[in-house]
């Protein structure tokens, strides 16, 4: 990969044992728009702010929450274009698994393979780490699952998590509000309230995106009309 002049890794250790490029990547994530995920007893919800640079942007064309498979969805904080590349690679890996085993890929396996890709970009020549953290929400035979994948390639399973600008407030809020036996609809309300906490301006169905997956194992992005309904319930 890359020119032979750049066949060395740009991600190198500092004397203190840190990989500075990854720290910078995490900073890029930390200045991205807030996104969060909550695992309920019967499903998973992920949500994100969708602040567009200008009112002239056609918000219906911007889709921050994406499917990886019919039963796994993902959202990010950080650099949008890097997210697109990862989504493309993950979708391909999921399809390759399906083609080989004729069985849908388990959530853990897809997360692991995506994380492996991200790790490769911290140890290869001529490339930089991805500037995104992903939240992967899925429902398979092991039940509902929520994973976070970082630019370093490490991944964690969460009951609830947040990333991006407002991460510390959002996590504190989630820690207070989260209960083990929460149902999916409660989780969606909690997700909206958490987003509202650090929201600049008026929250509406045009500037947030919500994706959910329930026991039906079908990941769906909510329509603006559905988001409006949930927003009304939260008021």
């Amino acid at each position, binding site marked *: 990969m890359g020119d032979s002049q750049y066949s060395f890794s740009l991600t190198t250790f500092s004397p203190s044992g840190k990989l500075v490029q990854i720290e910078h990547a995490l900073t890029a994530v930390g200045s991205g728009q807030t996104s969060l995920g909550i695992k309920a007893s019967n499903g998973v919800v992920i949500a994100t702010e969708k602040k567009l640079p200008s009112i002239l942007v056609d918000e219906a064309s911007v889709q921050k929450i994406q499917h990886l498979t019919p039963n796994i969805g993902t959202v990010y904080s950080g650099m949008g274009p890097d997210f697109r590349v990862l989504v493309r690679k993950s979708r391909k890996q999921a399809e390759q698994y399906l083609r*080989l085993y004729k*069985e849908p890929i388990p959530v*853990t396996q897809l997360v*692991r393979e995506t994380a492996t890709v991200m790790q490769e970009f911290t140890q290869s020549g001529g490339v930089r780490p991805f500037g995104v953290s992903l939240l992967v929400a899925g429902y398979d035979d092991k039940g509902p699952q929520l994973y976070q994948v970082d630019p370093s390639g490490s991944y964690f399973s969460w009951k609830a998590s947040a990333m991006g600008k407002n991460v510390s407030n959002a996590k504190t809020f989630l820690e207070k509000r989260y209960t083990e036996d929460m149902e999916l609809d409660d989780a969606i309300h909690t997700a909206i309230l958490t987003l509202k906490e650090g929201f600049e301006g008026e929250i509406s169905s045009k500037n947030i995106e919500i994706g959910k997956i329930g026991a039906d194992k079908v990941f769906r992005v909510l329509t603006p009309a559905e988001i409006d309904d949930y927003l009304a319930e939260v008021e």
Partner: protein
Amino acid sequence: MSIFEYNGSAVVAMVGKNCFAIASDRRLGVQLQTIATDFQRISKIHDHLFIGLSGLATDVQTLYQRLVFRHKLYQLREERDMKPETFASLVSAILYEKRFGPYLCQPVIAGLGDDNKPFICTMDSIGAKELAKDFVVSGTASESLYGACEAMFKPDMEAEELFETISQALLSSVDRDCLSGWGGHVYVVTPNEIKEKILKGRMD
């Protein structure tokens, strides 16, 4: 003589009530000469999944090693055993990888799937899957096996009766085939145990 008939083989699998049986002959030959009378054609992948391979003996052994390798890695990565249907798809993919220089084997796969439902299938040497609800056969004695199974098979047999049926079908079929025989090797698998038996047939 076809390369598939070089070593001689007979493999059959049958479905019973919440159980399955898989059986093979034991002869390893080099055309007309018998080299061994204890050749393993059926191998366990895990407690509820067996594969029997007929055809060229060297490919039987190599393919088995490759499949065990793949399954062990799968077990480590996914922390679970492979379902029989999944394994069959994997075997099919591995065989098709060598589409223009194939493994000269025909596998017979038998396992207990979800809810202990028996699953059997066979495929040709380049991975064309053939699922069946009753029985599947493979090897040089396959034509006789088809006839014998068709005549003797009944649906929903219990383990004891299934063992008798598959043994009779195997022994009578290999007697009509000079390249297979020298006894039989039968596995009857229920959700709780695996019964392995060696059959003594006509030793010729």
